[in-house]
């Protein structure tokens, strides 16, 4: 079992004919992901990936024709609002937006639209979701993780790969790995993912990889303390980050007094979470 995606997921790729979209669609399909359709406005009627995957002009026609139930979005930042809204409007249950660099105002509007929708948005600025052995929906390298019983949630890309890789080296596998995205405004928070993993019978413990900025980790610590029965192991990046400087991720900036790595670590420890000192330390805590 797993959360969000599995072998039955029928995946749509928005922006499938773009350079990134096509490259990663190849990788996803090679991994075994069931890609059922792509969308690129103006290219409806074409076929990609060995002429096996149909391309549509709109998400709605793609969904009507192929019954896609999840979408991965690879469009450039300036078109991302339109693409996410299009997926919401087509009632796609799971939307994963890989795109980075989306203006915060666009995301505020998307958050408002999500309130009256049944869709879940993962990201943006996420490496996506990986259920090892079943479905790779995004850009997480497929070969660095094996199936297992640890759920993983992260705000970061390569840092997550580092942890997956360190775990695999110790033969530790993952139920599902979810990147919630590195931006200040994301579709889904740690809490919602923690709750899904808590429900998932095949997840026995959860690794949470956080970083400076915002108060996602603070809220997660509180949630873990009050709601979670499964053990949680955390790692927080950014102890050495200076205040007020944006550290790559739009979300990774220490604003005022909230959001420092030390504060987050302290709250996690108070919530009974084992906190790793460095990424490669995590397998030892599992």
């Amino acid at each position, binding site marked *: 079992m797993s959360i969000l995606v599995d072998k039955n997921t029928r995946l749509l790729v928005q922006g499938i004919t773009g350079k990134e979209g096509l490259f990663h669609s190849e990788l996803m399909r090679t991994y075994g992901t069931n890609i059922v359709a792509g969308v690129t406005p103006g290219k409806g009627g074409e076929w990609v990936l060995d002429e096996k995957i149909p391309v549509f002009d709109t998400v709605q026609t793609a969904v009507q024709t192929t019954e896609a139930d999840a979408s991965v979005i690879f469009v450039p930042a300036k078109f991302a609002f339109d693409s996410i809204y299009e997926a919401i409007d087509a009632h796609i249950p799971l939307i994963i937006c890989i795109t980075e660099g989306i203006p915060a105002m666009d995301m505020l509007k998307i958050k408002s639209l999500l309130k009256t929708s049944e869709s879940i948005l993962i990201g943006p600025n996420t490496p996506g979701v990986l259920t090892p052995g079943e479905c790779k929906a995004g850009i997480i390298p497929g070969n660095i993780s094996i199936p297992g019983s640890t759920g993983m949630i992260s705000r970061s890309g390569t840092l997550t790969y580092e942890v997956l890789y360190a775990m695999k080296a110790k033969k530790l596998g993952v139920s599902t790995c979810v990147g919630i995205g590195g931006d200040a405004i994301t579709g889904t928070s740690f809490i919602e993912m923690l709750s899904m993993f808590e429900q998932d019978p095949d997840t026995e413990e959860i690794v949470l990889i956080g970083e400076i900025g915002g108060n996602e980790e603070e809220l997660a610590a509180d949630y873990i303390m009050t709601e979670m029965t499964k053990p949680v192991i955390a790692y927080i990046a950014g102890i050495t980050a200076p205040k007020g400087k944006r*550290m790559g991720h739009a979300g990774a900036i220490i604003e005022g007094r909230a959001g420092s790595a030390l504060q987050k670590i302290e709250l996690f420890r108070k919530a009974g979470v084992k906190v790793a000192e460095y990424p490669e330390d995590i397998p030892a805590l599992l």
Partner: protein
Amino acid sequence: MKIQEYQAKQIFQKYEIPIPRGQVALNASFVRQIAEDLGDKVVVKAQVLVGGRGKAGGIRLADDPDEAEDIATEMMGMEINGFPIHKVLVEEAVDIKKELYLSIGTDRMNATPVIIASEYGGIDIEDAAEEAPEKIARIPIDPMVGLCDFQIRGLAVSIDLPRKHWKKFAQIANALWQIYQNDDASLVEINPLVISEQNGLMALDGKMTIDDNALFRHPELADLRDLDMENPSEVEAQKYGITYVHMTGNIGCLVNGAGLAMATMDILKLKGGEPANFLDIGGGAGAEKVSSALRILFSDPQVKAVLINIFGGITRCDEIAHGITAAIAEQKKLKVPLVIRLVGTNAEEGTKILEKQKLPIAHSLVEAAEKAISLSGVKKK
């Protein structure tokens, strides 16, 4: 992207928010001239993007043009928090009856814009938020609806604003919302918003941060970036699409991915070293980007060793290896030692390329950090 006070005030003026009369100057003699034109007492304000300007002597009152010139001469030689003062704003002095606070910013937690006001302006709003949260009124704004009149009235009531100023207050609040929205600001702040003796409400200071992600739709705002005020290496890095933040340690870091870059710095610190910088080459970087990044690190005299940590996903390790090779070839002799760790996509090919160059390879992040610290020769015991 933060912009200078005088730039924020130019935007305020466009939206008809009252500001004191004044002008920005690059030298002391122009300061005198501005002071003469303004006629009365003036305030000379250092234009720097760091906090604590007032306490550091960056805001001073001058009784006459002579004094204004003297103050400006003095200021232009000063530094505030390490940043030299190149520009000053000269403004008429305003008789202040009361100082208020007003801003619109983005509330990350609730994912909405929020308008914040306080009857205690002029202070650090974060201090106030911690010490006396009841003095601060916050009203979330639905981004789909925009700021409404009743919300502005609610704020006016909360901060006990005298009724005769309500109309102007509403006009200023609406202008802030227009700026926030039209210019994709993540913060637009008036602190203090003063009730002046002569002119009613007026923005005495202005602060504005623009969402970097939205600069593509505001080319005119991107031009406001004050390159003077930023670390030259950070400016250089930006040109190549590299995120670089200069720090005070001696081990240069070159990493792909922001989270991993922070983790790499943290592990250096944990093992007793001090990172010289944050550097993220981003995803899918080519050889050239890697060379440019290395050049920036090599040009930093603080740097005693360089740690390269790459986890290949979209990024290909052979590309990275080519970039490293090229950057090293440019140097006659390698001045600082390198430690390199490559994992993931095409790591084997990359490792082979580097082995030919006889560059030291590490196999884990911990090993890489420890090697770099030892090579930097300044490990604390």
